[in-house]
């Protein structure tokens, strides 16, 4: 079952497992000793990055016992997830210190979450997916409630946990339906089954739709988005950033796999394709409209970013819609996810530097007149906000552009127009904080931004990356083009 080459293939997960055990040990020895835990985490993540990068030049896709896939797609995503987590781990030490949350458990939970996410993006079996989903989600629930003394944090964690648990049950129900219909839980076997199956598909469809609902919930697509603003608002900024990047990316990789679970060329599933597209259209448009219109009414910055995330989910779903009939367009989804993660990473790290005067969390008014007091932070924040809005010369422009192009290529012109209108509405939402920072006089009650030099340098690098990718996106697009979806 295990030969030496298989060991090499699953090396990243083995390293993660050891890292988790080591940090667990570290925190069990003394919970306040965070330096060893932090160093161990950084070491683990770097090793994961290296080992997954080693696997890039795999020519073929290898599936281990039908459960786990090691492919270009999974290795790239794994590399990406660990890189983003590494940035957060390195960058959020100051924030945790400030919030008095700096204990080694944090790192342990982050590593656990990364492990769940990394298995999730490689999972080729419905039950492996479920286990990975739970491994990813449970630490996330704990991290959301990490501010034990803050009632909003506790509330958010509880909401997230219960809703997540409920949707987990929905997933299991759906998976069992699929198993009942197709006789297998492995995606490749289900695909084969769908090719030759000729007959009633109702049972399978019910299962499939339920499974999709569960991951649309994880990706926060409307109308399964309700948890997102409340959870974002309640959780610590660094955790919010991790959720916006790692969990979103992992959820979308699974979502894409689930959408392409069956062979739509097959006679039995031809009518289903149209209906499924219709579902994506409705969900995408709902996400776009809900995200953009509610976003512009928000006063709390984290809630604003939550609705912005829902809005972005709409764009990604639009790109996914384009792939339903043209699977080679899938790179637009990966490119969007990567670009969005870079922007979010920078923005959330930047927000984690803030120090508000009251306990209400970072409000929009806290940014008033920041330009005069802290031009560097203003410039960085403006770059990230404008990136989110999709301004040209930032990566946000090209991510939207590729998604639009891929859906236009599939003939979804009307939905691209709707998305473009939502972009305009969204731009208002993103320009509001920028205008507050730049065009108003400083407000003495506004928030302060204090970051360490190394932290600033990290954020500046991310901002530069946003701009560089906004002018030369081709390199990243080429990378994502290699991430093909194999049934």
């Amino acid at each position, binding site marked *: 079952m295990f030969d030496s080459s298989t060991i090499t293939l699953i090396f990243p997960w083995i390293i993660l497992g050891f890292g988790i055990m080591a940090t667990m040990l570290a925190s069990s020895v003394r919970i306040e000793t965070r330096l060893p835990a932090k160093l161990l985490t950084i070491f683990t993540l770097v090793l994961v990055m290296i080992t997954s990068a080693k696997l890039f030049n795999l020519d073929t896709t290898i599936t281990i016992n039908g459960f786990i896939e090691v492919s270009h797609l999974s290795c790239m995503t794994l590399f990406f997830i660990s890189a983003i987590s590494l940035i957060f781990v390195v960058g959020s030490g100051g924030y945790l210190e400030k919030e008095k949350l700096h204990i080694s458990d944090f790192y342990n939970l982050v590593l656990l979450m990364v492990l769940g996410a990394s298995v999730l993006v490689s999972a080729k079996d419905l039950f492996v997916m479920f286990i990975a989903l739970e491994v990813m989600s449970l630490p996330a629930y704990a991290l959301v409630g990490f501010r034990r003394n803050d009632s909003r944090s506790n509330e958010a964690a509880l909401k997230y946990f219960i*809703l997540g648990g409920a949707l987990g049950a929905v997933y299991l129900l759906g998976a069992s339906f699929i198993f009942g219909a197709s006789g297998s839980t492995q995606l490749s076997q289900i695909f084969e089954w769908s090719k030759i199956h000729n007959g009633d598909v109702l049972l399978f*469809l*019910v299962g499939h739709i339920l499974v999709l609902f569960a991951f649309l919930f994880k990706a926060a697509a409307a109308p399964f988005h*309700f948890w997102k603003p409340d959870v974002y608002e309640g959780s610590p900024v660094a955790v919010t950033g991790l959720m916006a990047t790692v969990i979103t990316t992992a959820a979308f990789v699974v979502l894409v796999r689930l959408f392409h679970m069956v062979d739509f060329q097959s006679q039995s599933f031809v*009518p289903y394709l149209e209906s499924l597209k219709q*579902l994506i259209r409705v969900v995408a448009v709902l996400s776009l*409209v809900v995200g953009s219109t509610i976003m512009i*009414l928000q006063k709390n910055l984290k809630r604003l970013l939550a609705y912005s995330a829902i809005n972005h989910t709409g764009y990604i779903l639009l790109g996914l819609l384009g792939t339903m009939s043209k699977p080679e367009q899938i790179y637009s989804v990966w490119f969007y996810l990567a670009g969005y993660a870079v922007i979010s990473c920078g923005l959330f790290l930047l927000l984690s530097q803030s120090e508000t005067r009251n306990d209400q969390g970072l409000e929009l008014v806290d940014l008033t007149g920041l330009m005069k007091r802290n031009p560097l932070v203003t410039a960085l924040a403006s770059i990230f906000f404008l990136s989110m809005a999709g301004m040209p010369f930032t990566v946000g422009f090209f991510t939207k552009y590729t998604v639009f192009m891929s859906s236009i290529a599939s003939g979804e012109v009307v939905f691209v127009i709707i998305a473009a209108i939502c972009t305009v509405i969204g731009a208002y939402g993103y320009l509001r904080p920028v205008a507050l920072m730049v065009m108003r006089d400083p407000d003495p009650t506004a928030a302060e931004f204090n970051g360490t030099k190394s932290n600033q340098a990290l954020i500046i690098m991310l901002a530069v990356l946003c701009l560089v990718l906004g002018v030369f996106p081709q390199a990243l697009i080429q990378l994502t083009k290699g991430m093909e979806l194999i049934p």
Partner: protein
Amino acid sequence: MNLLLIVLFPFFGFMINGFMQLRSLKTGHKISSKQSGSIATFAMVLSFITAIYYFIQFSGQQEDGRLIEQNLFSWIKLGAFHVDFSLRLDSLSLLFTMIITGVGSLIHLYSIGYMKEDETPAKYFSYLNLFCFMMLNLVLGATMPHIFLGWEGVGLASYLLIGYWNQDTAKVGAGQKAFVMNRIGDLGFLIAMFIAYKYVGSLDLVDLQKATLSPKIASVVGLLVFFACTGKSAQIPLFTWLPDAMAGPTPVSALIHAATMVTSGIYLLTRISPLLLQAPDVLSVIAMVGVTTAFVSAVIACAQKDIKKILAYSTVSQLGFMFLACGVGAFDAGVFHVMTHAFFKALMFLGAGSVIHALHEEQNIFKMGGLSRKLPITTFTFVMGWAAILGLPPFSGFFSKDEIIIQSLHSQYGNQILFIMALASALLTAFYMTRLLVLVFFSPSRMEKETEEHAHESPLVMTLPLIALAILSLVGGFMHHSEGGHEEGQSIMIASVVVALIGAAFAFFRYRKFDKEEMTNQFVEKGLGIDVFYNKFFGNGVPLLAKGLSKWIEEYFIQNSMKFCTWMVEFSGSVLKSFQVGSMQVYLLMMVVFGLAFMIWILESVMQGVIFYGK
């Protein structure tokens, strides 16, 4: 030898003088007109020598061998659209190059003396070099966009030089007027370029010449190009900027507004002549506009008092002759007249400059008189120019002008109306030029005592170009082999000379003994009210239109619809937001409701689809 050299020398002159000017602004060190002028002149002379080299090379070759092309770099590359930055020299562009660099060198030389008192000669000479650089790009460019580059560049240089004395708002205004009028014409150029690209598929001039278009498209392109030319070459309806452009220094008027830039319209029409020949209607429009401009501006010139304005209207009138030539299909004759006109009109402008210089910026011809004794060289050379523009044999104007008049009757596009109007314009030309000559140089002096005493001949650096141009005005006509000489041609020649002599004699006897200011018709002097009309109609009309638009469209329509949109967005946002109640039970309930709704909807549609697919 490199074709690029012709273009590069003036460019280097422009750069050197420009940097010198910038440095002098910083250091306060003044640059004399001798220093900067000699650099600029040297640049032009070098360019002229290069042109002569090519002239010699060409004269040893057959007609079809006279073509040199040099591709410098790929300029614009957008998908299938591709424009090279390349220079192309053939007989036509060589002739223009010779005029620009040759006459240009003389005028640069003359400027050294003329701008001696000026504060910032380096600026002046850098602009002048910039102009020549752009003009050479215009005539050497191988593609329409390249010509357009030069076309805009000379417009810029012209604007800078008309408003060169920028302390005087009237002069600045004249520069702006010239620029705006030219921009109106440029619109035609741009649209013509777009249409030509759509139907020809290339903007290379060779491809345009070879293209066969439907008469309709050819007419549209031809008319639009001609409209552009009416701007640059000051024809009806866009001619009013040229008399005002005389606000610039006189050498500028000689170079830009007489010899070179204003003839670029003729150049462009000649370049696309194969296209125009496919649209005879456009040709007749060009001929009519040309001859009308020639006549109207000759009438206006008769009532002018300002020496430079007379020459300006005369230029407009002569340009009208050239367009007439193009309009009757005699492009050769038009280009020939460009050359001779460059010689004698530059000569007369420089002569007028010499007079103005001697009289300390006096430009009214009724405050001059009897200058022939004070300014012998200026007088002598001016008479040569006068003889040339009248078309007296054997002066250069005789050959070119008569060729045009003959063609206006005998060419396949010519007719009697054009012929009679051309002759009438020639009569008027003889009248107003003789009037100018007599009043300035030969009639009794009407100057103030002090001015008269200070009047003296200009220095050698200014008279030398005058003499050179006078010689060219005399012999320039022999550079072209006219195929005239048939019976009717000879009789028309005689007729036009007689007409010119009648006009001259009439003016001579009328103004010989003039000693007071003439009471001219104000309406005619003010340019037949065309300027006033433009000011009233467009000057007031456009702001009125803008006001109306801003009130009705902007305030009522756009603002209110925007308000409605923002209200819509906010309203839908707040409605959607009301679902976000914060209660988990409600969230779960809604997810279940939506999920069930989706589920039923999809299964329903799939079932229908299955029936539809016939399973």
